[in-house]
């Protein structure tokens, strides 16, 4: 079903031509009405003037004849003056013409058969009677508006002060109606033509205006999706405001894409820097135990017979090798987890619980587990498990042999929140800023890689991680993973 929408919501493609058309039509119509009105009054004035001019001419010509009752001469004058051409038929615009004596008797009438000579003119109806009385009372040349389609000129025939007759000349105003009708038809057809021209022109103009606007909007959508580099340049047409806008937009997208390229280059170099730092850290971390172990081996080689030495140094060498192995394994975990793209429901986190319980072993740590994520939440399982594991292990290390540890996972809107809380020693403020740096550790046995790896994993999932910590009271790590894909439900709604 087509629903009527408020014009406010219409497309510019419809609004512009409609506005232009409406304005054109209104202007044409208004001017037309003004012209018709003016033309009507002009015509009326011209008919009045004609009635008076003809009436005066008849009065002047017939004056003497009327005074001497020369009926035939007066009639001939009347007939000639009202003829369309000399000796031609009667002018159709003249409804009637007559010369009457002051008592209303016919001296001459254009319809002599109906109004006989010498008789009082017959009044067909009261209105005509009133007009006749008015005409007979006229002392000066005047115009009477009949109202019903005619204008009457009344001219007294004078000789000196006395009036010995009047000329009545009645002209039809049909001409006005006919002219008005033809003018109206002309104006309406002109308006129609202008409306068609206006809408055509409007369509062309609006198309020209709206096309670049549409292109701009499409281009902006592309930018909104973050694909700055792929925006097609919006075509530039003329030198108007829209053109300037298009130009400005194109400059903006160009600058945006340059900025993005720059950022990508920056990210690459940052990665390289981080890699260098890691390589240096690894080298340093591995080099430290290696120096001690090489020392032990040198001493053992110098005193091969001294079994005490072997008994003292071999555990040291073993310890050093274990440390190197731990570092390498941690790095491997990070590399493995970073590339993993395996998705599972929210319950996959429960695997972590067992590992942590095993790690706690018989230490006096109370562990509180709360996973409110259902299987409708899709998680990058390996990464999220690693994150949870690392944060909880960090908590255990902070607690030492006793304390409270808590894990919580829940939904906040669309985002998944994972929290790990302990009431251990807390983190000094000066360490907070370096907390996620690789190889930063406060424990002699720590590799300083756990939190760094956690940070990298969260970052790879476009998440954030925050820490709230107070000395001697404990720490809270909160991970927020936004934009996770939610599996379809039955009561899906738009």
């Amino acid at each position, binding site marked *: 079903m087509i629903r009527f929408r408020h014009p406010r919501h219409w497309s510019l493609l419809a609004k512009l031509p409609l506005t232009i058309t409406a304005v054109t039509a209104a202007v044409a119509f208004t001017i037309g009405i003004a012209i018709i009105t003016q033309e009507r009054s002009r015509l009326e004035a011209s008919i009045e003037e004609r009635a008076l001019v003809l009436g005066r001419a008849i009065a002047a010509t017939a004056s003497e004849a009327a005074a001497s*009752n*020369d*009926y*035939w001469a007066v*009639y*001939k004058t009347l007939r000639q003056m009202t003829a369309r051409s000399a000796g031609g038929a009667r002018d159709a615009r003249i409804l009637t013409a007559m010369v009457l004596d002051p008592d209303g008797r016919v001296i*001459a009438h254009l319809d*002599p*058969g109906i109004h*006989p*000579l*010498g008789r009082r003119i017959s009044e067909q109806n009261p209105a005509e009677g009133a007009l006749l009385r008015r005409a007979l009372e006229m002392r000066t040349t005047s115009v009477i508006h009949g109202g019903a389609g005619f204008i009457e000129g009344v001219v007294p025939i004078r000789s000196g002060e006395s009036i010995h007759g009047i000329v009545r000349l009645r002209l039809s105003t049909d001409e006005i109606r006919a002219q008005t009708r033809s003018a109206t038809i002309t104006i309406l057809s002109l308006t129609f033509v202008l409306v068609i021209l206006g809408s055509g022109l409007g369509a062309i103009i609006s198309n020209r205006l709206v096309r670049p606007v549409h292109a701009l909007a499409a281009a902006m959508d592309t930018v909104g999706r973050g694909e700055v580099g792929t925006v097609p340049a919006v075509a530039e047409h003329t030198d108007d405001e829209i053109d300037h806008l298009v130009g400005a937009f194109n400059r903006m997208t160009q600058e945006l894409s340059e900025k993005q390229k720059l950022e990508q280059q920056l990210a690459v170099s940052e990665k390289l820097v981080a890699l260098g730092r890691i390589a240096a850290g690894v080298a340093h971390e591995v080099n430290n135990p290696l120096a001690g172990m090489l020392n032990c081996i040198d001493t053992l080689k110098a005193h091969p017979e001294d079994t005490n030495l072997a008994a003292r140094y071999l555990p040291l060498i073993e310890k050093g090798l274990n440390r190197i192995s731990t570092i390498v394994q941690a790095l491997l975990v990070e590399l493995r987890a970073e590339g993993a793209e395996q998705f599972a429901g929210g319950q996959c986190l429960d695997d972590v619980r067992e590992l942590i319980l095993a790690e706690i072993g018989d230490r006096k740590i109370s562990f509180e587990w709360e996973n409110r994520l259902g299987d409708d939440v899709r998680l990058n399982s390996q990464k999220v498990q690693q994150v949870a594991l690392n944060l909880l292990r960090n908590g255990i290390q902070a607690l030492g042999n006793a304390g409270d540890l808590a894990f919580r996972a829940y939904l906040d809107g669309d985002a998944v929140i994972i929290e790990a809380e302990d009431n251990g020693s807390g983190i000094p403020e000066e360490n907070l800023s370096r907390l996620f740096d690789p190889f930063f550790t406060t424990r002699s046995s720590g590799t300083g890689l756990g939190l760094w790896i956690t940070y990298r994993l969260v970052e790879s999932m476009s998440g954030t991680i925050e820490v709230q910590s107070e000395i001697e009271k404990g720490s809270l790590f909160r991970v927020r993973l936004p934009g996770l894909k939610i599996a379809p439900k039955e009561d899906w709604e738009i």
Partner: protein
Amino acid sequence: MTPRPRVLALLVVAFFFALPARAAEPAPVRFGLTAVVVRENVPFYQAWSRYLAQKVGRPVQFVQRRSYREVMELLETGQVDFAWICGYPYVRHSDQGFFDLLALPEFEGAPLYRSYTIVHRDSPLEGLADLEDRTFAFSDPDSNSGYLVPRSLVLKLGKNPDAFFRLTFFTYSHAETIEAVAEKVAEGGAVDSYVWEYLARTQPQLTKRTKVISRSELFGFPPIVALRHGNRDLNRRMAEAIIKMNEDAEGRRLLRDLALDRFSPPDPKVFDGIRRNAENMKARMIAIPRP
């Protein structure tokens, strides 16, 4: 200084050429007419005036007046040499001795015609008696057929001609009397039978709108008269030119245009009927008692 004598020479030459031309143009013969008989027909009068000028050896100029009275005045004062008048003014003025009969037009075999009483085609009136208290058109107060005859007929009905009709007017032309009746301006009219028959042939659309309800006895046809004190030789030549019109082709063509057979030599006896009517009218009108 050479142009001056040349201009002078030209002027002298022009003078000598102009002088004989002027001398060769004699004073025109003036011929009085009214529209009563024949309506304004400029091409016809031009042709007739050329024809007569050729015959009499002097240019002929027609002088038209509205009424017989005016033409009679022109004749009486010697302003015209000839005139085509009506039988009524002829009998009224014939004893005053300022004109002579020159020629009589012959219409349908004799120099005689009638007066027709006409009404509109759709009129229910059947005779002059029915026209009592109605509007009536006369042609000219000096016309026989258009005034004297209808009035004497009213008199014969035993009525006063001045009071019989409700309203009368003069059209000063028989053709216009027919028009006045055709357009119902007048309910009846009196016309020259010659004019009515002539128009019935040339303009039937006009006469068809009227009908003749009574025909009078025959009267003498309106005659052509000459100024008695005029040039006798000119009068003779004019009489000969008019009476012999039927003897050449151009004259016959002109006669055909006038719907006349010929012009015959004068015979005053044809006007006896008009004379009797006029005298009778005069006597009776005097006898009518006046309030």
